[in-house]
Structures are given as structure tokens and as C-alpha cells.
């Protein structure tokens, strides 16, 4: 009898716990469902139609199969946008990652006033990209801009002035430099956290063995930072594919699409030209790229875990 009663209380307790758990989860589940999962599935569905952003009675929405995707393959603006994203990855990811690692190693030393420098290096990260883009547009001013003046001064007037944001070859590198300036502090802090987790005994042992600075860097620091490095490289790559704010504010993709990016093209297509179906196809491709990169990260990071276990 008593045992049975106890079992009943346990099971009612379990039931109560279960109900409470779902109550606790409900708000997040509803919000994620409505604002993430539904639109995500809708994006896939819409990408197979010719849907307009504002319904047009003359062009009823129709299922068009893979037509949008096929059209993307021959869309020169889309190709240019995608190439630009890859261009950004190839240049910015290695530069920004090594710059961030260098900064992290520099500020990891316990010397006087180091906190002051840490704060300054990190401060662009908290500045909004919209603001940064506007300030740098002025810095890149074609005639008497500060950056032109600086380049002319250090080259004794031999170089420049350049039309940074209106020259098709210079516009993207100019945006890259600015993006590195704004974003490198973020990765620096992540590397710093990684550096501080490396046991100092490893370095001490290496010193006893007479290792020099480079040897310590290549044989201890880099291997120990492997997972941090993978994380930084992957997250910077994903950010590069999301590139939007800078190009929207500074150039709106111009001149002649030289700074067009995938996200900007998707938004311009949906919002400017009202072609929601076609724009959805662009975001689906964008998602597939991000997914592939994320899977690569999990794959690479796991490998290390297995290595340790083995």
C-alpha cells in the first residue's frame, strides 16, 4: 500500500515536472518556430515560385520548380556577388586571423599599462558598423581624405590620391581594411582566452630544452590553439558571407556591382525589385554555404577530440 502510494506521488511529481518543463520551454519554442523555423521552410518553398513581395494581380504566384536556381547560374550580378564573398574570405580570413593572433600574443604579456592597450584595441568592436562605415567613407574621401593624405605623406607624394570607393578595383579592398579594423578585436579576445588556457609548464619545459621563441610558437602555441583557431577561422568565414551593413551604407554594391555581396543582392532583389521568390533562392544558396562551413567546423573540431581520446 505504502509503496504504491509513494509510486503514485513520484509519478505525479514526474508529471508535474514534465508539464512545468514544457511550460518553461513554450515561449522560446513558439518564438523560434514562428520567427525562425517557419520562415526558413518558407524560404525553401518560396524559392520554387515566382512570388512577388507585393502581390501583383497580373502576375499570379506560380510554382516554377528549379527555374530560379537555374536562372541564378546565369545571373552575372549574382556571380559577381558570390565571387566577392569568396574574395573577402580569401583575403580577410588569413589577414584578420593572423593579425588577431599577433595582437593577442602582444597583449598577453604582463607589462605596465597593458590593460589600457587591450581596451583600445577592442573598442572598435562595440562601435556599430553603420557608424564605422560612415566615418570611414569620410576617411576614404577621394580628394583630400585623410587616408589619401597619409599615403601621399609616407610615399613623398609619389602615390595617390586614389578614388577608394568609386574605383572598381579599390572599393572592395577598402571595405576589407575597414572591416578588419572593426572586427579584429573580437578575434583577439577569443585568442587571448585561448592563450591563457595553455599551461605555462609547457613553455617552461621547452625553455629548459633550449627552445627559442619561434620554436615555442610553432610547437606549443599553434597546436594548443588548434580548436580556437578553427573557431575563429570558421566564424570569420561565416561573417564574410553575411557581409551587408558596410556595402549597403558605403557603396550600395557599386560602382557597377564591384562591391555587391550575396546578402545585399538578396535584399535588393526582394525589397527593391520585389522579386521575393528569386531572392529566397539566393538566401537558400547562402544558407547552404553557411551550413557547409559549419559542418566543416564540427568535423575538424571533432577530429581533435578523438585525437585526445585515442
Amino acid at each position: 500500500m505504502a509503496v504504491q502510494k509513494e509510486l503514485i506521488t513520484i509519478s505525479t511529481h514526474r508529471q508535474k515536472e514534465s508539464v512545468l518543463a514544457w511550460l518553461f520551454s513554450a515561449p522560446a519554442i513558439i518564438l523560434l518556430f514562428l520567427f525562425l523555423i517557419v520562415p526558413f521552410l518558407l524560404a525553401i518553398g518560396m524559392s520554387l515560385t515566382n512570388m512577388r513581395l507585393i502581390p501583383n494581380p497580373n502576375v499570379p504566384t506560380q510554382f516554377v520548380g528549379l527555374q530560379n536556381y537555374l536562372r541564378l547560374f546565369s545571373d552575372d550580378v549574382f556571380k559577381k556577388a558570390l565571387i566577392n564573398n569568396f574574395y573577402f574570405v580569401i583575403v580577410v580570413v588569413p589577414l584578420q586571423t593572423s593579425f588577431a593572433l599577433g595582437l593577442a600574443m602582444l597583449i598577453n604579456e604582463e607589462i605596465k599599462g597593458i590593460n589600457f592597450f587591450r581596451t583600445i584595441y577592442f573598442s572598435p568592436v562595440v562601435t556599430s558598423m553603420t557608424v564605422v562605415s560612415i566615418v570611414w567613407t569620410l576617411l576614404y574621401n577621394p580628394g583630400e581624405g585623410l587616408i589619401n593624405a597619409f599615403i601621399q605623406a609616407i610615399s613623398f607624394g609619389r602615390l595617390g590620391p586614389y578614388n577608394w570607393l568609386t574605383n572598381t578595383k579599390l572599393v572592395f579592398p577598402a571595405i576589407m581594411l575597414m572591416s578588419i579594423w572593426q572586427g579584429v578585436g573580437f578575434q583577439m579576445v577569443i585568442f587571448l582566452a585561448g592563450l591563457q588556457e595553455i599551461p605555462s609548464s609547457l613553455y617552461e619545459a621547452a625553455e629548459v630544452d633550449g627552445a627559442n621563441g619561434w620554436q615555442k610558437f610553432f610547437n606549443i602555441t599553434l597546436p594548443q590553439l588548434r580548436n580556437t583557431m578553427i573557431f575563429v577561422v570558421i566564424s570569420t568565414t561565416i561573417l564574410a558571407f553575411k557581409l551587408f551593413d558596410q556595402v549597403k551604407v558605403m557603396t550600395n554594391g557599386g560602382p557597377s556591382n564591384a562591391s555587391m555581396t550575396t546578402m545585399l543582392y538578396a535584399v535588393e532583389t526582394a525589397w527593391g525589385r520585389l522579386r521575393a521568390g528569386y531572392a529566397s533562392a539566393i538566401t537558400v544558396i547562402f544558407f547552404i554555404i553557411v551550413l557547409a562551413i559549419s559542418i566543416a567546423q564540427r568535423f575538424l573540431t571533432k577530429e581533435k577530440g578523438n585525437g585526445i581520446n585515442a
Partner: protein
Amino acid sequence: MPKEKTSPVITYLVRKRIKTGLKYALLILLAVFFLFPVVFMIISSIKENELQVIMDMSSLRAFIPVGQLGVQNYSDVFTSLNFGQQFYNSLLIMILTVLAGLLVNSMIAYALARLRFRGQNILLSIIIALIIIPFEAVAIPLLLIVNKLPWFGGATTWLDTYHVQIFPFIADAFSIFLFYQFFVNIPKDLEEAALIDGASLFGIYWKIVIPLSRPIIATVAILQSLNSWNRFMWPLMVTRGEDVRPLTVGIQAFFGQSPRLWGDLMAFASMITIPVLIVFLLFQKWFVRSVASTGIKG
């Protein structure tokens, strides 16, 4: 003979001195690189003569407060650009998003970490999988959805409202994940003791777990606040008037007008940036910790 003995010591000391000197030179050079745009922005914002802002740009005068100085640009931004309204919009959207987000995300994370229920593991896997979907991938269909959503008082669209800028960002899979990781690592003793004392499960969440979770609350709050304050693409898509639009869209709209009034623009930019910089300086350690914690994700 003794000379030979001391000289290596002296060269060592001299070398060390030079090395430290070079290190500081490098640190300062980098500080200049990271600071110059911000200093330039603030200095230009107090120069009242528009022509002078441009003329000073080709020399070091860009960083020196010279000429006709004052707060005229600032008052221009307040009076002709309705800065106050847009500042209020950004602040309101940020506070509501972050507060609601802290509650909603920590609650589901608590259920996942501490309560036992059917479907728990599947739910956790789904949440972790959702981290991968970037908002950018759903923005366009979401625009169609919010365009047709009803709201209290008979409204049939969410466009040009505050809630359209808040609701999509309250629940956040990554914040849930951060909370979950933290809750899993809190020792269970306290909760068990409270349970024996007859505390309700909600009471345990509210009175024991949440007060213990200040570090993770700060982390999530900082990350979400920065995201909200700096958010640009979505409000650009869903707001048209000045009434509800945030500062980022406001300054971009002003930037698009010609002729560009650089002094006013720099004052506008400074007023978006300086509050965040002050908060950052006050809670520096927490900011750095928050960013560092995102790295654990791998």
C-alpha cells in the same frame, strides 16, 4: 678581466630595455591605428564650419580641435533630425529585447538542463541545430510573414512598429545554449536541499538558479544588447518612417541625403557611439568575458 664578466650582463640589460621600448612603440602605434577614426569623428563633430571639416582632413589638423568650435552640429542633429526620438526607439527596442530574451531563453535552458521530460534530448538537439541558421537566411520570408501578422487593436501588419523589431530576436538558440551550458555546471546540492524543504520548481528556478547565474546573465545581456543596438538590416527592411526607426537606420537615411553635412553626420555618429563606449569602459571586463565565451562554441 672583470670587464668581460660584466659586459654580457650589461648587454643583456640594454637589450632588454630596447626590447621593452620597441614593444611599447608597437603598442602605441597599434593604439593609434585603432583610435584614429574615433578621435577624428569626435573632433570633426565639434567643428562648426562644414568647409573646415573637409579642409582639415588632409593634415594633422583633422585630429586637433581648431577653428570655430561648438556644439552647433549636435543641436542640429537634435532639432532637424529628431535624434531624441530615434535614440529612444533604439533604447526601448534594446531593453525590451534583452529583458524578454533573458527570461525566455533562460527558462527553456533551465528546463533542458534540470528538469526531466519526454522529448528533452530531441528538443536540445533541435535548439543546437538552429544555431546554424543565420537570421539573414530567413529575413526575406519573415518580411512577408510580418507584413500580414495581426496585432492588438485591429492592426493587420507588423511593419513600422516596435514589436516587429523585438519579437524575432527574443528567442535565440545561441543564448539558450550559453544558459544551458552554465546551468548544467551548477552543483545540484542547493536545489536538492530546497526541494526537500518543499520549494516549488518555479521557486527553485527564480530564487536559486537565477541569482547564481549572474555571470551568464551578464554575458547574454551584453551580447544581445550589442546586437540589438547595432542591428541594421532588419529595421531597414521593416521601418519606413522616423517614428519607430532606430539610430542605425536614421543615420543611414541622413547619410543618403545630399549635400552631405559632414559635421552633423559626425555629431550623429558620435552620439550613437559615445554611450556604448562609456558603458563598455564601465563594464569592460564583462564585455571581454562575453566575447571570449562565444569562442567556447566550437
